[in-house]
């Protein structure tokens, strides 16, 4: 395969705040829960997107990551912008919330608003809605971030006509969040493909897997 890809921007959740291309764009503030922290980060980013509050914590985290990554620079070709997100713990937070509701001994009623988030690929939909992206999308559940595997999927998407990819890792479990996100584009230059591939893999490999865990 000879697709040329390169990273144009990178976002990481590190030490309780978002960093874009190595620079902190939000600040860490003590919050009583992950939910409160997510709301605080939303407000710091001045998002003005009420739908955010209807999302579960996984989708909120993914939306925040992409907001930091994309900002006002929305993809030029939304139909050719793919979304590729990796995740280890699936939608466990919403799965548990749903299980708790339907196991209630007094009133075992499911909540439609909780139930719709009991699949991890819903975060792709939330990202697509927010940025009006209609390209290919794929959610992969994997134990660890294997750069070769990530690149293989990215390359396949690019080969299927995507000129740009939003690619990352988003996980929420209990009060812990983990996320990084990359903006990857097809390369127009004459750079050697294998070098680009190697660099992309190296960059992904070097992204710290810091986990945001709230202090009690």
């Amino acid at each position: 395969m000879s697709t040329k890809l390169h990273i144009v921007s990178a976002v990481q959740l590190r030490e309780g705040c978002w960093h874009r291309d190595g620079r902190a764009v939000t600040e860490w503030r003590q919050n009583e829960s992950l939910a409160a922290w997510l709301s605080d980060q939303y407000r710091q980013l001045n998002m003005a997107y009420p739908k955010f509050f209807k999302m579960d914590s996984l989708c909120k985290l993914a939306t925040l990551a992409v907001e930091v990554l994309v900002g006002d620079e929305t993809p030029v070709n939304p139909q050719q912008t793919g979304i590729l997100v990796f995740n280890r713990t699936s939608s466990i937070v919403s799965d548990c919330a749903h299980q708790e509701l339907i196991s209630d001994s007094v009133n075992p009623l499911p909540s439609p608003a909780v139930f719709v988030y009991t699949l991890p690929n819903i975060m792709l939909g939330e990202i697509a809605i927010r940025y009006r992206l209609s390209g290919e999308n794929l959610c992969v559940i994997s134990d660890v971030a294997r750069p070769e595997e990530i690149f293989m999927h990215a390359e396949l998407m690019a080969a299927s006509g995507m000129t740009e990819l939003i690619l990352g890792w988003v996980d929420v479990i209990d009060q812990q969040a983990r996320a990084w996100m990359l903006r990857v584009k097809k390369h127009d230059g004459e750079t050697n493909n294998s070098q680009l591939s190697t660099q992309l893999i190296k960059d992904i490999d070097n992204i710290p897997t810091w986990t945001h865990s709230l202090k009690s």
Partner: protein
Amino acid sequence: MDALIEKLKGEIIQQLNLEEMTTADIDTDAPLFMEGLGLDSIDALELIVLLERNYGIKLEDPKAGKDVFHSVRTMAEYIQSRQEA
């Protein structure tokens, strides 16, 4: 009726995760869907669950939903009429 309307507004905010709203932000007579609060189809299902969970009322005729969920006031009137029945 005023007390029920106020209570209902609080429940709607909580049930639908309208985190940035207060009861004062909700117009009692404004349409809940499309305009007004701009609720969607999932919210409609949540409102049906809210009626059942909080008031023990099952909406048996789906066609009635459009009128019942037109506004907070129509919801409150429906609850009151079912409780009096």
